């Protein structure tokens, strides 16, 4: 029996095949699915912010891309003894855009950039992505084969 394990906002979970990791309602947040293909163990992280440097309280480290990803990758590498970890990412939308807003202020875009930069530093390839735009997304990560479904409202399901 496979189980669906739900990951909330600013949180992450680790799980093993045949289970599924799910996160619902990504807006400007970014979901990062990580996978160790030999042991079929994966993680799903739902980050809210790109960078922790301007925050004094960083105890909720899973909220920040720059803290969450190195920690989770470490945990995954330790548990699986695999160095080659794969990533698929989705989210980082701007749900409402006012015409007078500059792009630099959009958290979604900054989240995408930070996730990509951190994964590059960790030497983790992004196999595929579905990011940006104006729509919310939900991610369904199948740990049997690292098939990741991205569901949106009034749009066809996208397979990462």
């Amino acid at each position, binding site marked *: 029996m496979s189980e669906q394990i739900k990951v909330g*906002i*600013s949180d992450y979970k680790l799980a093993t095949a045949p289970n599924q990791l799910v996160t619902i309602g990504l807006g*400007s*947040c970014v979901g990062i699915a990580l996978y160790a293909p030999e042991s079929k163990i994966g993680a799903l992280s739902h980050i809210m912010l790109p960078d922790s440097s301007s925050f004094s309280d960083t105890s909720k480290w899973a909220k920040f891309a720059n803290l969450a990803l190195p920690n989770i990758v470490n945990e995954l590498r330790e548990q699986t003894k695999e160095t080659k970890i794969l990533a698929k990412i989705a989210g980082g939308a701007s*749900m409402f855009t006012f015409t007078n807003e500059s792009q630099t202020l959009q958290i979604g875009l900054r989240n995408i950039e930070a996730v990509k930069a951190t994964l590059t530093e960790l030497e983790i390839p992004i196999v595929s992505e579905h990011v940006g735009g104006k729509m*919310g997304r939900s991610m369904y990560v199948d740990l049997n084969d690292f098939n990741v479904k991205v569901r949106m*409202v009034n749009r066809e399901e996208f397979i990462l």
Partner: protein
Amino acid sequence: MSDKPSLLRFDALQEVVNIGGGHAATALSKMIGNKVEMDVTFVELLPYEKVYETIQSDDTIVKAVLSKLIGREYGVFLFVIDPEDAEALAHIVLPDNDELSEGLIDSALTELSNILVQSFLQAVMQLIDKPLFASVPVMTMDMFGSILSSVYMAQSQFSEEVFIIKNNFYSSGRIIEGSLYFVPKPKVLEQLLKELGI
């Protein structure tokens, strides 16, 4: 919100939103020619998880209209409604059309939300004796979770707990339900209460 407001301040805030909401309900009922009722104003600090458990599930598809306060950037208003209820509302304000296009429904909804926000602000302006202006509203249809979290984040609210401030409106006769949220920027509530002398 870094510090939780005391009980008295909580009450004062609830009262302000209640007055604003009451004014908005009256304006809406004039507009749709039907009585509009309102629940007691909801003011509570909740973790996202609880919001999705108790208020609305994160994967519910909703229509949402966002209006920003401009000049004094206190925060934003977010009107949230079920797409079917939005259509029913549009039929009330546009009674001569049998079939309404999605575009017409959305513009009727945007205008209704605008009226709610403007009349809410009118009432609050009289209380704080300062002018308040809201932007032209923008609308989207998406998952409640995507919308709510993104709106709080855009107001620099990055906590796992969010301060939910909302009024629920119902139209009697036909059951149409919608919620108007006020999402403040950090420290704004303290500032508003100060202006009220509390």
